[in-house]
């Protein structure tokens, strides 16, 4: 059997075993599915050896599995299949480098887990450069045994940063909306989960539509739109305490599309009580509204630039929706998009250089990324046909977006180069409106 063939088969095997594991496990409502959209020639090969457990009861989480899945999803790494890991060193002194060179691995991760008492677990890991036979990282975490997935994501983040030079974003959370049931019997839930879709928690529930969740920059709150009053209204909810406040609820017109300022003190929204949807900035503490746009068109989907001084938003002032940029103090808006008949729902990378958007051509709506540092070149990262709601990870290495499978909504995570795509599926209902949260603080 030739090498690529064997690789394909073992990749299939890992996919099947992943699905099987999740169906059997406690999170039966969920499954993950890695889809390799194109070749991964540029991905760095890395082996993650199962961590040795020193005493204690069997653990609910295989830390190495979680790290491996993170790496594969990123598109930057190709982790050696578990089945191909023939040796299991847990200390640097036990590593036989020839074995890992033979397996064509550039990096090797090993680790060990010990009971730290009082329900705490101590996880130690080491990252080795296989060719140089050099230790690159040796760190430890002490955490509650229930947070092993969180520890695994943090290890993946540190390794990712060590090798790529870019901060990892695996230990982050995502928000999304699910709709379960049919027509008048639909229940909408706003959910917060780990970046890989695990540990879903319901933040808000409604019999009417919920949409446009937006993370506060410190990750403690979500702004979102609810139709529970019969009309759209913008709420801000504290994720930890559940306490909630109404931010915009004009009885006339739309109150929607919240986006946080980088300092978390303001929300940009789209309000139409003035006659048609216009962008406003609301001071969260005082609720003072400042109008930004003044135009007969639909102006919506604002997002702050990283410096907090401008807004990029969707407007159909030229006939069809396109992206525009304007100062937070208003004035003239500059049109940013010219390719495609429909450009909307902007999401900015942390450095403001890349703008992800929904680009529509005919009946095909795909996620496109415009690179402002490359003369506004546009690349597609999703196949269509009704893709929506792109949301960059805080390090801009990946995006979440909503797509449709049959008549049901599903979420995808895609690497920013579009090469690796992963689907997050819930067992029932429709999933939509993904939003990737900020980095977490330990």
């Amino acid at each position, binding site marked *: 059997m030739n090498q690529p063939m064997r690789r394909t088969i073992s990749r299939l095997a890992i996919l099947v075993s992943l699905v099987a594991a999740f169906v059997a496990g406690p999170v039966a409502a969920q499954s993950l599915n890695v889809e390799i959209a194109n070749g991964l020639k540029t991905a760095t090969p890395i082996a993650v050896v199962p961590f040795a457990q020193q005493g204690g009861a069997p653990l609910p989480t295989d830390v190495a599995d979680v790290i491996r899945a993170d790496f594969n999803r990123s598109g930057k790494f190709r982790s050696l299949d578990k089945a191909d890991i023939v040796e299991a060193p847990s200390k640097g002194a036990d590593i036989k480098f020839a074995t890992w060179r033979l397996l064509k691995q550039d990096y090797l991760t090993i680790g060990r887990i010990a009971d730290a008492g009082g329900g705490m677990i101590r996880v130690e890991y080491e990252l080795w450069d296989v060719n140089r036979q050099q230790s690159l990282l040796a760190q430890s975490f002490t955490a509650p045994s229930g947070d092993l997935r969180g520890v695994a994501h943090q290890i993946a983040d540190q390794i990712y940063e060590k090798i790529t030079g870019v901060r990892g974003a695996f230990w982050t959370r995502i928000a999304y909306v699910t709709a379960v049931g049919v027509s008048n019997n639909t229940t909408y839930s706003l959910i917060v989960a780990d970046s890989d879709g695990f540990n879903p928690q319901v933040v808000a529930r409604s019999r009417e539509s919920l949409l446009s969740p937006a993370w506060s920059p410190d990750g403690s709150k979500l702004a979102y739109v609810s139709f529970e009053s019969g009309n*759209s209204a913008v709420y801000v909810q504290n994720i930890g305490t559940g306490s909630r406040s109404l931010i915009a609820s004009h009885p006339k017109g739309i109150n*929607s599309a919240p986006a946080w300022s980088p300092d978390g003190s303001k929300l940009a929204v789209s309000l*139409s009580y003035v006659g048609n949807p216009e962008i406003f900035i609301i001071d969260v503490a005082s609720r003072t509204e400042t109008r930004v746009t003044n135009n007969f068109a*639909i102006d919506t989907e604002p997002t702050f630039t990283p410096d907090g001084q401008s807004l990029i938003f969707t407007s*159909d002032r030229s006939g069809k929706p396109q992206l525009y940029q304007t100062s937070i103090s208003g004035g003239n808006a500059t049109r940013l998009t010219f390719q495609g008949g429909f450009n909307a*729902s902007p999401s900015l990378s942390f450095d403001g250089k890349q703008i992800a958007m*929904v680009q529509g051509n005919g009946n095909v709506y795909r996620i496109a990324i415009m690179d402002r540092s490359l003369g506004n070149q546009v690349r597609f990262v999703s196949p269509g046909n009704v893709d929506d709601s792109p949301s960059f990870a805080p390090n801009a290495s990946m995006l979440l977006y909503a797509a449709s499978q049959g*008549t049901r909504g599903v979420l995808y995570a895609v690497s920013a180069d579009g090469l690796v795509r992963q689907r997050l599926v819930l067992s029932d209902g429709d999933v939509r*409106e993904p939003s990737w949260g900020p980095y977490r603080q330990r």
Partner: protein
Amino acid sequence: MNKTVRVTLAALLCVGAVACHKKQEVKQPVQPPVQQTVDNSGNNTNGKYQPSDLDTDACLRQRVVYFDFDKNEVKPEFQQIVACHAKYLQDRPSSAISLEGNTDERGTREYNLGLGERRGNAVSSALQAAGGSAGQLNVVSYGKEKPTCREHNDDCWSKNRRVEIVYTAK
């Protein structure tokens, strides 16, 4: 095998179509007697609509205005509906309507909220032009949040591009 299935399907479709025609044929003769009853018992209404007409009048019972793709103009074939609802609003000054604007699934959720509102506003303007007053009218946009049909095709999209006329006071 395939042919048999196709023929069967075709036959079923034909039966369905015939059944539909029959239904319409049955409906139409039923309506005039109902209107007569109203006329006979309500001599003092002076041609003004009453709340009961919302359930019986052939025009008032139509509560959906459909739109072309990416358009928010009220098409001529819906002028009759607009006219009778405007007359109802005039006849019953205490009545009120909520106009619920909806779109098809194409495009983003937030942008579609705007489009749904434009359609709601278009019907509101048409009702006002025909005699309804602004105070009786409220527009709510649901964008693509409340589809009546979930397939990804033209037929389905055309059913979802609509404004629903909902009486909040009769």
